[in-house]
């Protein structure tokens, strides 16, 4: 989820999805990552320049000195009848300026909050996605470290009780007749990504984020679609990331894989795509084992091949089957979406969805993939 600049842009746009009128605007604004990061816009904010020591529970809370941050949960869920779901709830904070305004009205703000909520219903053959914007005023949106809570209106990820802290979380979201209510049991320590949590996104110093993950969290609860409420169990992947700037000017998008294998291993890989079609050297990933050990791997240790592509009805051409290999660890995986159309038709369009994983050695797994920057510049909105 190296998407900080893109999300930063998103915040600039202020108009929510679904409104036909906003299409003009979407078209008018070219969401080029390179435009987002001028030196000026980072002025006044802290930068992720070197590794830091993480302190919990404080670091679960907000980092207003950085321009942007997010709380990201994705997961694969199974109903008692093996009915299959994918879900995503992401809550973003994006600062419009470094200085907090000194004003009398409680509505005055320098932060825009926005969130994406999606449920993929494999049997139903549909993904239900929603987008919201708000501001940290009157309790409409915000985040606190202790007790842990991050929310946008009635969408939230929060500690169930103060004693258990981050160990026991509840994820709740509802829009229209789609709802999610999950209990998350966090039973492992976080995995620090990159260099002790400093995740570099390009060669330029400061184009980096602080980034940690909980790659596998047993989850249990209910998914509601329409009249039907289904009891589900499954696994969640939780990401936390904050930064001020991340992308280099020649990067056009990224492919991000977060895979949970049945043998107890987890694999995360992000590949930054450059405008010449090649992978940026700053691409990286990890392989975590059931015993808690974590291998940090560089771009040259991954081999990613696109096997198939899928044409979105909204004019983008996304990869839709991959072969992902880590020769040094003898990993060879075939990755395939559980549903082709898991594209978010949000203010910024991207693809994020549940995937199945299979290996030649019989290893199986599931996960989530995020694909951005595939929309052609002239795509009609």
């Amino acid at each position: 989820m190296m998407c900080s600049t893109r999300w930063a842009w998103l915040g600039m746009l202020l108009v929510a999805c679904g409104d036909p009128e906003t299409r003009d605007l979407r078209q008018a604004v070219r969401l080029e990552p390179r435009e987002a990061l001028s030196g000026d816009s980072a002025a006044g904010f802290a930068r992720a320049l070197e590794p830091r020591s993480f302190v919990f529970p404080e670091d679960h809370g907000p980092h207003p000195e950085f321009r942007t941050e997010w709380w990201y949960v994705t997961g694969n869920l199974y109903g008692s009848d093996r009915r299959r779901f994918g879900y995503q709830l992401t809550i973003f904070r994006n600062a419009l300026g470094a200085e907090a305004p000194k004003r009398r009205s409680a509505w005055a703000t320098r932060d825009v909050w926005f969130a994406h909520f999606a449920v993929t219903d494999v049997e139903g053959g549909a993904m239900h996605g929603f987008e919201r914007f708000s501001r940290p005023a009157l309790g409409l949106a915000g985040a606190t470290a202790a007790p842990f809570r991050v929310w946008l209106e009635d969408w939230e990820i929060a500690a169930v009780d103060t004693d258990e802290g981050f160990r026991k979380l509840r994820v709740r979201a509802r829009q229209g007749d789609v709802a999610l209510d999950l209990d998350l049991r966090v039973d492992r320590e976080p995995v620090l990504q990159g260099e002790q949590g400093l995740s570099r996104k390009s060669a330029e110093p400061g184009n980096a984020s602080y980034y940690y993950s909980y790659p596998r969290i047993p989850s249990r609860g209910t998914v509601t679609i329409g009249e039907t409420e289904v009891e589900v169990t499954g696994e969640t992947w939780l990401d936390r990331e904050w930064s001020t700037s991340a992308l280099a000017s020649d990067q056009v998008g990224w492919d991000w894989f977060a895979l949970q294998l049945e043998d107890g291993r987890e694999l995360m890989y992000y590949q930054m795509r450059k405008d010449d079609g090649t992978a940026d050297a700053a691409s990286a990933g990890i392989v975590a084992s059931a015993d808690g050990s974590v291998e940090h791997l560089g771009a040259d240790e991954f081999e990613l091949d696109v096997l198939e592509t899928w044409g979105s009805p909204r004019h983008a051409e996304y990869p839709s089957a991959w072969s992902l290999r880590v020769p040094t660890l003898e990993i060879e995986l075939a990755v395939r979406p559980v549903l082709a159309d898991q594209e978010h038709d949000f203010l910024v369009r991207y693809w994020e969805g549940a995937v199945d994983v299979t290996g030649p050695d019989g290893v199986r797994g599931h996960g989530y993939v995020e694909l951005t920057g595939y929309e052609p510049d002239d795509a009609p909105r």
Partner: protein
Amino acid sequence: MSMLTRISRRTYARHPGQTILSVVGIALGVAVVLAIDLTTASAERAFESAVDSVGGRATHEIVGGAGEIEESIYARLRIEQGLRTMAPVVRGEVEAQVENAEQPAGVFTLYGIDPFAEAPLRSYFAFGTRETGSEFDLSEFLMGPGAFAVTERVGRRLGWAVGDRVVVEAQGYRSELELVALLQPSDPVAERGLDRILLTDIATAQEALGKVGRIDRIDVRLDEPARVEAMRARLPAGVELRPLADRRETLGELTRAFSLNLQALSLLTLLVGAFLIFNTVSFTVVRRRRAFGVLRALGATRSQVFRMVLLEAVLLGAVGTGLGIALGYGLAHGLLGIVTRTIEDHYFTVSVSSVPFSGADLAFAAALGFAVCVVAALAPAWDATRVPPREVLLQTPLETKWRRWTARGLVLAIALVGVGAVVLSTSVGLTAAYTGLFTILFGAACITPAVCRVVAGAVRPLCRVILGTLGVHAARSATSSLSRTAVATAALMLAVATTVGLGSMISSFRGTVDRWLQFTLVADVFVSPPVSVAERFRVRIDPEVSARIPEVEGVARAAAYRRFEVAGRAGGTDLPVVQCVSILGFEHVADVFEPVQGERAEILERALEGATVLVSEPFAHKHGLVVGDRFELRTPRGLEPFEIGGVFYDYASERGFVVVPRPLFEQHFDPIGISAYALFADVGVDPDELASRVEAAGGITQRLTARSSRGLREASLEVFDRTFQVTAALRLLCVVVAFLGIWSALSSLQLERKQEVGVLRAIGATRRQVVTWITTRTTILGLAAGLFALPVGAAVGWILVHVINRRSFGWSLLSFDVPIAVMVEALVLATAASLLASVPLAMRFARAKVPEALRES
């Protein structure tokens, strides 16, 4: 071209003056009707489109008990109840002025919205470009204190560019704003609706309008009816969900009586125009009796003759209506300023920059013009078919027939007046009232010939004394030609009566308001933040400033007014907005409340105890309430009943308002700030000096406007006079049409009496005597019309004041008078005008050679 058509054409071509007059008459009538229709409709449409644009796709709104909502209620609804298709609105009127500009840019509504909540409701916030071509910058809009946006159209109109700084003043609070974006709504209707709107972030609006912590309303979109009830059930006490249509209707309702009255008055002008058409067509028929006789003898059927005359009228009508429509558009532009100003003085702020082309209004005016012409021509056309072929050879004494007809007509006319009076006294509605008035007027018009005869008979001795035999002959001649002059005289009478009626109505109103102001303005100085009428019940004086005002040196006593708006219910009807006032120090200003009936001391005592509320007369009238009735107001605890202890005179507010005595206010409502003060000066303190000292108390926090009672009285009367400007303009138009009526009548006379003049000259009358004879004759007709117009006009005035005004606005006037000046004016208008108009014609007659004149006919 058939023979009939040729005859028609020749007849009208030979009397161009007559033809032009009737065309102009109908044109003026149509023009006035169309102009009034267009102006009131454009004001209403502009208002509605503004309501719709700012409402967007909202179907409902949530409003608070005393007009505002505590902002946390919004967050609670959104978070705890998950209600998402809603958006908060903070709004208020501001006066804007570009920094360093000499002229203020005008009054705008400042709209504070939360862009993040807008998507389900308003699309116009989806703007993309800025003047520079770069994208709209959300951070500027949200973070720049004072950032605002207007539509590109407004920017063009006012010459504003991004980066301009604008000083706005709202309820006395001044703030500096900066234009950060020019919006381009894709919907042109929405764009027009935003013509007077400054759009800001909700935080900016709260700060600029002095409303930190509060919002004015929450716009809600509820597409399914089932959700409406569900939502209503979940609302906390003190706020209310109501359909947005109510807002449109409430404000449409406000101007309904105003518009209807203007329309009815404009119809009066058309009625006068109709008389002119009738006159012209009758005249041509009378002139051509012989021709019709010949035609019939030659084999023309009755229906051919009927169609011929009717077709002539239709053509006259078409030309007149066409002209009238063109003229109406022009006139509408002229009236627009006056009408919108009146609406702003009394009802709401509205932006109407142009009169839009309206097919419906145009069709209405055209249909009306045609219908009036056809109806006016029916009787003469029928008359034409009655000419028997043998009349070619007979010289039927027309006047004898006419007299027989008038005898019957008189009975009918009196009956019409009676019917009108019955309609007036038994009906309740405004339309019925106008029907009654028009019936009476029509009846009176039909009586006019009889009155002329009486007047001519009465002045005969006087004529004898002054002018001798010639005078007697002139007086007799005036009535002997009534078949041709009756209708024109009736039109003249109608027009003059209308001016008398309108004049006496305006005078009665002004007299009443003046008297009322005298006992109302008991205090020496009145102070409040500067606001428009629309905002009067929403304004608050800053608490710190408010505390300073009673302490200003020279203030002996102070009464503090807390004004507010709440929803209510009366007699089973929802009242979306009830204006209320609660007064601290009521005893100081108790004299202001003069009960319409009942013992004053007793009424006030009960009110002061907090047992009952007082309501203004228009409020009681509008909602059909009387003393002892109960109605409900929405308090923070829901709808609660209040009993009316007294109804008092008030001419300031057409909507009416409720006085909630302090004990009742404190028992039922949450505390709110002070809106205005009435101050009593210490002995020897000059009120004007005190006013300026009080204004200074506002300091830099809030500008205050303080007026001495004298100043306030003058200002009130100024508003009053402005209100009646349109009526005065209509009155003037009636005078113009009346003049045309006189000309028309004289033309008829001239042509009919040419032979008579020849005889006079032949028997030795000098030219001078002929001039005297003609002018005397016409002056007698003018005088008769003028004299009769006085009682008829007085009756019109009385009906306007006591029936139509009461039904429209609910005011009972403290006085009714027909001012001497108005009566003199009417007589002078009628007689002098006919005199003046007759002179050039008389001169032309006098110059005519005797044999030529005799040869005529």
